[in-house]
Structure formats: structure tokens, C-alpha cells
């Protein structure tokens, strides 16, 4: 892992404009990713993780979804300012994405060879025989057995784990510098999930790709990421190195999320801490700290004013009034 920052997101705001309301799905998010490093973005459904990922790829469902503020600095350029044509040179080539469900992200009527070669042809402009070589090397990178024979297979002929590897091969086919993986293991079985994570650690070592790993599972974070950003209701409430966040989480939401995961190394009679209630509706946010209605250590000020972000350690910052 080097110190070379490849992506810097500053105060990103993404909103959806509906007839009834403006929904600020991502509301002032800042983070960075280094070369060869994995950043985990963790949170419950609806907290803005996926929208953050889609914003980076500029794949929001326009015109209702738009980036309304902030910067996405990748390789010295602000991606927010690029027009559609310019963005195409980045998407799939420099930055690529893996989606959650391999059943729906592959086209059922094309062979996997066709689907992987699509981006290779588009971005690398290679002659046909070279394209096939690139495709096979992408399949090899993802450790798909007998890649030459798999080229002509259709997605339905592969198992769920193999399909997700094909999706990974598409993402890695143009040697991207940044990979956004949106819950890539959620649809997989436990042992296959472990295989997939080990595979990506290996790929990262070989290619030095920076990875943003979006997940709701702290177990996956522990296995895969060097740093974590915890999101709640469109904001990052805590970022820290993985080892720090498990030992000493500072935000009550982070602590509650970690404690609500049943762990094999704890006695079974411990009652699980659950977070009562549900995340707020993004169209109707509470004033002050967004976690206040569910927080067990809430104070008066939490309900009135939003907490500022405070640096509490090396690459560790928290937005909580308790920390001051």
C-alpha cells in the first residue's frame, strides 16, 4: 500500500428531485482512497452507500438524480465537471464497478466472452485476436477455471459464485485504478464469500487497484478493508482504520452496529444489542444529529444542532457531540 491518493471526494452532495420533495441521499460526504488500499463504506439500507458509489461512476438515474455539490477528484481531475463524453473515458476503464446481484448485472442472452470483450473493445481499441487474449487474462485473474472454454458459456450455465467472478472479470478487464464493489458478496454463500474476498485481496496485491467496498456487514469489513467509513442517513458519521474502529468505536451508531453483529467468539447467552427503531426517512430528517432519535446516549444539544466533524486520532474522525 502506498501513500498515493487516487480518489479524493470532497463535500459530495447528491439529491433526487421528485414531485413531492428533494431527497438529499448523499449530504456532504468526504473521503479518500489510496492506491492499493480498500476503504469500506458501511451502513444500513437507505443510508446512501449505493448512491455514493453511483455518484462516483456518474451513473445516477438522470434527470431525477443529480450531483448538486462537491468535488470528486480522480487522477487530478474533478469528475463532477466532466461532460458525458469525457466521463466515458473514465467509466469502465479507470474506475469500474461490481454490483450486488450477478443474476441481474449480466445479460442472459450474451456469452460471457462477449460481455467481457465489450469494455475491452471500447476502451483499448485492440484487434480481435488481442481482445480474446485480454479477455482470457481477465478470466485468469479472477481464477475462473478453463477460461478458454468458459468464453462461450452463457451466464445461466455458471453458478452464482462463478457469475460474480465473471462480473469481477468485466470490472478488471481494462486494468482500472479504482474499483467500486457494491455488496459483491451479499448474494453468495459463506464459503464462496470467503473465496471471493481472498481472491480480491490477491488481485489487489497483483494490480495495486484501490477498492471501495460497500457493505452492511462488519464481518466483511474486518476481513477486507484497511479503513472504514460508517454512513448514516446520507452522512459519514465516523471514519477510522479498521483495527481502531473495532476496538474503540467513538460514534454510538458505529458501536451499536458492531455490537449487533453476532460473533462466534462471544458467548451465546449474551443478548444482542439491537438498535431500536429505524433510520429516518430521507425526505423528513430530524433536526440536529440524524441519529439522535435512536441514540441511547442522546443529549439536548443533539436534537438541536448538527455535530461537527472532530479529528480524534490518526485518520480517525467522528461527528458526535459526545466526543467534544
Amino acid at each position, binding site marked *: 500500500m502506498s501513500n498515493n491518493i487516487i480518489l479524493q471526494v470532497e463535500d459530495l452532495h447528491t439529491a433526487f428531485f421528485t414531485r413531492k420533495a428533494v431527497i438529499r441521499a448523499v449530504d456532504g460526504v468526504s473521503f479518500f482512497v489510496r492506491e492499493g488500499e480498500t476503504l469500506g463504506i458501511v451502513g444500513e439500507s437507505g443510508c446512501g452507500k449505493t448512491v455514493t458509489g453511483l455518484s462516483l461512476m456518474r451513473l445516477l438515474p438522470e434527470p431525477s438524480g443529480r450531483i448538486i455539490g462537491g468535488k470528486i477528484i480522480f487522477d487530478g481531475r474533478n469528475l463532477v465537471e466532466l461532460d458525458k463524453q469525457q466521463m466515458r473515458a473514465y467509466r469502465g476503464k479507470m474506475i469500474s464497478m461490481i454490483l450486488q446481484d450477478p443474476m441481474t448485472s449480466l445479460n442472459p442472452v450474451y456469452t460471457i466472452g462477449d460481455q467481457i470483450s465489450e469494455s475491452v473493445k471500447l476502451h483499448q481499441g485492440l484487434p480481435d485476436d488481442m481482445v480474446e487474449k485480454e479477455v482470457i487474462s481477465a478470466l485468469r485473474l479472477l481464477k475462473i477455471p478453463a477460461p478458454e472454454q468458459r468464453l462461450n458459456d452463457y451466464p445461466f450455465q455458471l453458478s452464482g459464485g462463478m457469475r460474480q467472478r465473471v462480473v469481477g472479470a468485466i470490472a478488471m478487464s481494462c486494468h482500472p485504478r479504482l474499483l467500486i464493489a457494491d455488496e459483491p458478496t451479499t448474494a453468495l454463500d459463506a*464459503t*464462496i464469500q*470467503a473465496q471471493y474476498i481472498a481472491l480480491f485481496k490477491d488481485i489487489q496485491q497483483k494490480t495495486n487497484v484501490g477498492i471501495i467496498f460497500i457493505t452492511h456487514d462488519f464481518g466483511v469489513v474486518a*476481513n477486507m478493508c484497511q479503513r472504514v467509513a460508517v454512513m448514516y442517513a446520507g452522512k459519514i458519521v465516523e471514519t477510522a482504520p479498521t483495527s481502531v474502529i473495532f476496538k474503540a468505536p467513538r460514534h454510538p451508531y458505529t458501536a451499536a452496529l458492531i455490537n449487533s*453483529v453476532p*460473533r462466534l467468539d462471544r458467548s451465546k447467552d449474551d*443478548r444482542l444489542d*439491537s438498535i431500536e427503531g*429505524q433510520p429516518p426517512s430521507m425526505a423528513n430528517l430530524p433536526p440536529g444529529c440524524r441519529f439522535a432519535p435512536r441514540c441511547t446516549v442522546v443529549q439536548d444539544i443533539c436534537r438541536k444542532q448538527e455535530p461537527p466533524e472532530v479529528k480524534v486520532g490518526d485518520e480517525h474522525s467522528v461527528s458526535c457531540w459526545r466526543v467534544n
Partner: protein
Amino acid sequence: MADTLLEGRDLVKHYPVTKGLLQRTIGWVRAIDGVSFTVERGKTLSLVGESGAGKTTTAKAVLLQEKLTSGSIFFEGQDITKWPQSKLKTDYRPRVQAVQQNPWSSMNPRMRVRDIVAEPLVVNTKQTKQQNRNRVLELLDQVGIAAEGADRYPHEFSGGQRQRIAVARALALNPSLVVLDEPVSALDVSIRAQIMNLLKDLQAKYNLSYMVIAHNLATVRYMSHTVAIMYLGQIVEYGDTEELFNNPLHPYTKALISASMLVLPEDEDRQIKQIILTGEMPSPLNPPLGCRFHTRCSEAQDICSQDIPEKHAVGQQHWVKCHHFD
């Protein structure tokens, strides 16, 4: 003395694979192949394994949603596979209820919560509407849904709340056994804990038995008293939860446990070694000879591909099917 509520003995379910116009049978999918287990009163049995291991088929057999190829199910000591449909309808089905995995598809979106929860009462009892109405409110209260919720539709609730409603429906007839098929895997991590705590509370209150199907071992450990690890249609290890987690014997169990362990970055240098299985589960259409796990087992020897391992009892209520389990 353990009080057995339900016992499955050598359950077998083979599905025919047919081909062509005449639907000739060209093979059999051995979904479950000789599965035996017991569910004790007031206790939880978990079936664990990957997709295709036969967990859901076993649950369907218990719920009488699938007709078994062979084997028998004993409920309170009586072989229900010999009962006529009429007796099953009055004496078995109402007492064995189910909660499905996905709370988005297990409820009719056009019915109000009140009617969803009341449906088992309407079908199976002769209570008056007023009695049903009161019972529904009582049930919703048990699972932590406010009374106003009764007149709403499922889409107005979050996933966790819907799963609570599904639990209320399952409890409507005061069942003895509830089959929970992946009860929390469709929910957010923070909500899972709420539902698991609720299920445990209800179990203690009504002395319910649960049969839980899950693939996440940590969830299983928290919920269950007994665990059955399934692989390709068979139970490969079976035992008391704590015993099995502290002393896993089958290589597959060890790999599963390792896959669900939380390994912190600093642990990597230490002795905690993750076992990562290679390959995938073979097809149940044509299971491997000998031990069915040998194609993925790191400890496999010649004997494993030839002989089917016997059941080895190790300690109380803990057995394993492996040639070299120590």
C-alpha cells in the same frame, strides 16, 4: 429426560429429472438423502449449509409441502407420514407453522395486516369475528407492532416490521413448532438483532420449538440449542451448539466456522488461520462417490473417495460423518 417434539428419521427426497416429450426420467436430484434429526420441546434445531445442501427441502418435508420419497416424521411420538390428510389438517398442520425468508414476498400486498394475521384463524378455527379481532391485536402486541398497524398494508412497513408481522401470523394458532427459513438474512444487520431477540423471547414465553434454516453460523450460534451441518443432501455433523462450535470435527464444519469468523487485520499475523475451501458444491444430480465432501476437502485421502463414512458418535449428542475426524 429430553422431551422430543418432532423427529425426522432417514428422510429421503429425490426429484426426477425428465426429458423430452414423454417426460422420460433420465436421473434423480438427490435433494436429501437419509436425513435424521430431532427437535426438542422448547428448543431450537438449526440446519446449516450452503445453497443446494437440502436445508429447504428438509423444512418443506416437515411442513408437508413436499411428499417424501421415503422416511418418516414422528410428531409427539406418532408417525404422521401414516396419517390421513384429514387428521393432518386438524392435528398437525395448525401446530407446525412457518416464517419465510423474504418478508416482501410472503404477504399478500392487497390484504391489510389485520387480515393477514387473522387468516390462519379464519381457516382453522370457528371463532367469531370479534374473537379473531382481539386475538390479532394481542398477537401484534406480542411482536411489538402498534395496534394502529392492523389497518395498514404490508408496504407501509419496513422489512423488520414485516418480519414481525410474519411471526405474529405464525403464532396465531399457538403452534408447537415454528419452521423459520432464513428468518433474518433478508434484513439489515442492525434489525437482525431485534428479530432474533424477539424470537428468543417468544420461545421462552410459549415454550416454542424452532427449526431454523440458516447459512450464517454466528446467527445460528445465537439462536440454537442443536445444530445440524448439511452438505449435499446429508447431515455431516450434528451436535449441541456449544459443543459443536468449540470442538468442530468435520472439515466442512471447520471451514464454515472459519468463513464466518471475524478476523481483524492484526489477527492475520497470529495463529488464526482462515480455511478457504476451493471449488463449489458438486451437483446433487450426480454426487461424488464415497464421502460427498471429498472433492473439496483438504484432508481427503484415498479412502474418502471410495467408502461412505459412518456416523461416529463423539460425546453426548454429537456425531460426525468423516473418516478421519480426529
